């Protein structure tokens, strides 16, 4: 059970949007995290470095701006479930060309038909999975 936190949600969301907007306006790139992360598996080319820098920003933001106590404690299920979920997230975002950031924010904002459909599909699927898990 978590509480509804409208102010921090809106404020945090605005920062996410600002980071993504800066990357587009200044670097000319879409802030799709699955795409950025997966391309890091390639051999370093000139475009490899901005991706690494963006990922480094994501990773170090908590260390620079927050206390360890600001981080949630994960009470996750079995290791196997985590591994299966990670695999599905990796495969799914690769095949489907994006995740919550690339499709859900950047693509939806551009009114991309593909991104709107993808977002509706992964949201609905995740809602069904959460509902089913509660039944089991």
């Amino acid at each position, binding site marked *: 059970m*978590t509480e509804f936190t409208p102010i921090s*949600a*809106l*404020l*945090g*969301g*605005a*920062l*996410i949007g*600002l980071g*993504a907007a*800066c*990357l587009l306006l*200044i670097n000319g790139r*879409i*802030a799709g995290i*699955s795409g950025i*992360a997966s391309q890091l*598996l390639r051999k370093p080319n000139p475009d490899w*470095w*901005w991706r690494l*820098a*963006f990922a480094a920003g*994501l990773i*170090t*933001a*908590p260390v620079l*701006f927050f206390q*360890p106590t600001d*981080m949630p404690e*994960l*009470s*996750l299920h079995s*290791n196997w479930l*985590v*591994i*299966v979920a*990670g695999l*599905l*997230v*990796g*495969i*799914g975002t690769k*095949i*489907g*060309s994006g*995740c*919550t*950031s690339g499709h859900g*924010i950047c693509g939806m*904002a*551009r009114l991309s*038909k*593909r991104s709107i459909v993808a977002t509706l599909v992964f949201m*609905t*699927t*995740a*809602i069904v*999975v959460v*509902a089913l898990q509660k039944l089991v």
Partner: protein
Amino acid sequence: MLLSILSALASGLLFGAGLVISGMINPQKVIGFLDIFGHWDPSLALVMTGALAVYTPAYWLLVRQRTNAVLSEQLHIPNRTEIDCQLLIGAILFGVGWGLVGICPGPALTLISSLQQPVFLFIAAMFVGFWLAPKWMSLMGKSVPS
């Protein structure tokens, strides 16, 4: 090159700070949002609203008027429009993984600094997935979008 690396770093820092403040990095909160038939926590709808409220005008009012980015000749904006099986199957698989534990790629990276074992397992598995997907696609005679 150096400037564009610094700007990507700054963008990543803003994005990551947003993930922490918004609660997106808390899997419990994500599950609480997806649990619309239970004790629903609508916060993440507002995270998306906040992000879209900044990104949408930035795109339509600033970026769309330009043919280049500030530090790059090119604006790399996807132009595909077809809704194909790959998009749908990919979104379903992602949705299942996201619903199972409440972690998606951005929060996974930002959670690294909390040094908790499940994060590392998740990220390792996610990268194996990134690596596997093109292999499977080519087995089925399809290419995976880069």
